């Protein structure tokens, strides 16, 4: 009986290990494949060390700024209830799912040299803004990641039992006392993880760094990998650079685990704790100003994308609709894969939380954060090319890679909740000898459904906007919407491309809302 209660190897563990192994093969294995295909062993040059330095410094500053700025935003959202709060939270997430080029053009439409602010400055007789260089890269990364940081911090606030805020009110705590006693511990538990995640996203981003970087100083490791492939066709060097990127990822992960304290899962982002300390006029003004500022910062570029897109919508033809349908199908397949993998990994981690094995399994799910999309794509290509026509598996590979790329975010949403369910109801289920499907359906699923809906929405939206990884697998007759958008731009059709961008953003947000809504069981 003891063995039944504490099984060493369960089907859940085996499945978890299977998925984890697959993910490791996809991210680390593809590096090996690329390295093996090299004619000569790779070596790193002075330029690569400069790239490492730039990559690290911009990612550190971007991640630090994103997380620090997210603190007042998350705090304001956590303690204020107002009309449109839900919608604002959704919209704030939009930059995160935009294709890079669309977002960059949107940013430039506001903050660029020819943007709204510059136009105003010039009209008043001042010099236009210049956002190129290090600060441009950081600005864009904050634009992309501030919403993510805000969400991660807000989840931390939701983990605080409601009684604590009542208690604080009863003890007559001031805003400062609450900050010290309640909020700072929250931040200590969620900031390191948020920082590490965003740091990694900034490490592997490269189109942003390149476009706004202002010159070759802004060279990231991912650009060096890109260069190694297409400029030098030096796969040994590409593999070495990819390993370097993994090393950074491992460092960031260790940092996050060391500092982060895992808390109970949050109750979704909808709850607003009633507060008595911040009812004053000044506090309201501050929160209002923070929310207004961040909304303006994030939504103005988005609004420009939408505004400009309206004119372009009329220029789109049937090709755009087909591409849209294809993208939605890829996004749905990708979402199913993400959710499937996240649930398998989550179950294994939740049921074997204490063991080393669970740690390894959970890490495998996050590997893609540090992986080079270019290397994954190339490694898969080398592997699959002898077997199948790459174009014939293009959409399947796109769906798979998108799924793996959004898996870390799905895990962030799901694993804490699944752990919680296991700790609260796991023993009850064990005692009733509930296992397998029945246990999942009756015990786990109802409890994790909102988190799963959120994770699915995120996966769908991310998959809609993603591109690049699979350039090698692109099927010219079956373009997805982002690829279609790039093609429009590549054929001088900027207006139509903006229409496609609008379509992409709108459908991504709709998909996100749809899954989120399904999860809430409305």
């Amino acid at each position, binding site marked *: 009986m003891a063995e039944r209660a504490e099984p060493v190897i369960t089907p859940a563990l085996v499945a978890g290990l299977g998925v984890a192994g697959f993910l490791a093969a996809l991210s680390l294995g593809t590096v090996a494949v690329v390295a093996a295909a090299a004619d000569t062993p790779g070596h790193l040059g002075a330029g690569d060390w400069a790239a490492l330095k730039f990559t690290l410094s911009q990612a550190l500053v971007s991640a630090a700024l994103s997380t620090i700025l997210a603190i007042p935003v998350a705090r304001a959202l956590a303690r204020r209830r107002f009309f449109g709060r839900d919608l604002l939270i959704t919209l704030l997430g939009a930059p995160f799912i935009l294709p890079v080029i669309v977002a960059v053009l949107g940013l430039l439409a506001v903050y660029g040299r020819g943007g709204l602010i510059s136009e105003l400055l010039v009209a008043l007789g001042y010099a236009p803004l210049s956002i190129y260089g290090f600060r441009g890269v950081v600005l864009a990364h904050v634009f992309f990641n501030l919403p993510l940081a805000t969400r991660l911090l807000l989840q931390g606030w939701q983990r605080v039992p409601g009684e604590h805020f009542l208690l604080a009110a009863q003890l007559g705590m001031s805003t400062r006392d609450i900050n010290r006693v309640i909020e700072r511990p929250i931040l200590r538990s969620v900031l390191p993880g948020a920082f590490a995640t965003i740091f990694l996203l900034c490490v592997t981003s490269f189109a942003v760094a390149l476009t706004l970087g202002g010159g070759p100083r802004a060279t990231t490791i991912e650009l060096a990998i890109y260069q190694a492939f297409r400029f030098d*066709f030096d796969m040994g060097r590409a593999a070495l650079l990819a390993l370097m990127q993994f090393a950074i990822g491992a460092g960031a992960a260790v940092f996050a685990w060391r500092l982060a304290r895992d808390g109970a899962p949050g109750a979704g982002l909808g709850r607003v704790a009633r507060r008595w300390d911040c009812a004053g006029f000044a506090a309201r003004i501050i929160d209002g100003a923070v929310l207004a500022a961040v909304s303006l910062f994030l939504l103005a570029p988005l609004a420009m994308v939408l505004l400009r897109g309206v004119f372009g919508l009329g220029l789109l033809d049937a090709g755009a609709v087909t591409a849209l349908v294809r993208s939605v199908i890829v996004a749905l397949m990708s979402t199913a894969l993400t959710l499937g993998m996240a649930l398998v990994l989550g179950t294994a981690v939740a049921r074997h939380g204490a063991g080393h094995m669970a740690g390894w399994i959970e890490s495998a799910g996050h590997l893609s954060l540090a992986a080079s999309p270019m290397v994954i794509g190339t490694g898969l290509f080398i592997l699959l090319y002898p077997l199948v026509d790459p*174009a014939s598996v293009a959409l399947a590979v796109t769906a798979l890679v998108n799924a793996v790329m959004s898996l870390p975010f799905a895990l962030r949403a799901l694993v804490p909740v699944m752990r919680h369910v296991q700790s609260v109801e796991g023993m009850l289920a064990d005692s009733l000898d509930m296992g397998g499907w029945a246990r999942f359906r009756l015990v786990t699923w109802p409890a994790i459904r909102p988190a799963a809906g959120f994770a699915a929405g995120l996966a769908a939206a991310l998959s809609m906007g993603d591109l690049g990884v699979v350039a090698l697998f692109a099927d010219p007759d079956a373009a997805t919407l982002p690829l279609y958008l790039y*093609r429009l731009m590549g054929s001088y059709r900027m207006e139509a491309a903006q229409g496609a961008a609008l379509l992409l953003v709108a459908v991504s947000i709709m998909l996100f809302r749809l899954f989120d809504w399904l999860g809430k069981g409305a």
Partner: protein
Amino acid sequence: MIRISLMAAGLALALAGAPMAAEKPVLNVYTYDSFASDWGPGPKVEKAFEAICDCDLKFTTAGDGAALLARVQLEGKRSRADVVLGLDTSLTARAAESGLFAPHGITPENLAVPGGWNDPLFLPFDWGYFAFVYDKNKLKTVPRSFKELAAAPDSLKIVIEDPRSSTPGLGLLLWVKAAYGDKAPEIWKGLAPHILTVTKGWSEAYGMFLKGEADMVLSYTTSPAYHLIAENDDSKAAAIFDEGHYMQIEVAGKMATAPHPDLADKFLKFMMSEKFQSLIPTTNWMYPAVQLKDGLPRRFAAPIPADKALILSPERAQAVRDAALAEWQSALSQ
């Protein structure tokens, strides 16, 4: 179950590419993305060639010329490609070294490529000049050389593409090298204050230019023709530089391992024909490689005189590339 089978049918429809033409041999042409896009020459080329070849022409795409070459290098001897269309002369030396291409055995007639042509492996299908494009309504004092550009007030900003990730970017690198040789670093130093930013590819740079971010963008002398002909907009122009303009000659080659060598030969011949070539100006927005019977389309800018054409031989381009890149990096990193 009905729902599931409906979904499956929907999936199958959406996932299916072009319908397979039954029984006909398939000619695989690898090309860059914009060539095969709905607005590029691809669809019309496909239709015209299929009308005469009794075959199925299938495009496979990679992002641009350099990505195209990397792709066939990855595939190596197992490649299913018959023809690779879309490399340029800065890539052909590496392409030739790879040993993946076979001689075309064609002597092109009526060639309109400045400087003539005698490459046994690759045939040109179009060409153009790199140039800085500007908006006539916005930029009043237009520089007429790299030196004038360098001497212009710092507020004159240009967007260029990164030579490591883009074909035009590499073209500019070779342009400055061809025009100034050992003096290239000085020119780059002079240009540095004007370079607003360096983008990953042409689309980003051109998009930023159209949005008014920069006064000039590295593109082609033929870019204004697009705006004039397709959009009836005559505000864009290419700045003509005294040093001359670097040429991009786009070429195609037959794979040594082509599954259908005869069809590949036929396609290359077709490529040099009036039918194919007349499609080029207003779909690929480049100059055709042969003299067209009726000349260039109306309003399509005449090429600058051939004595202004600059180009390095493929071998020379390959040889100076790394050093030129290093010069570029160090000049712009200060």
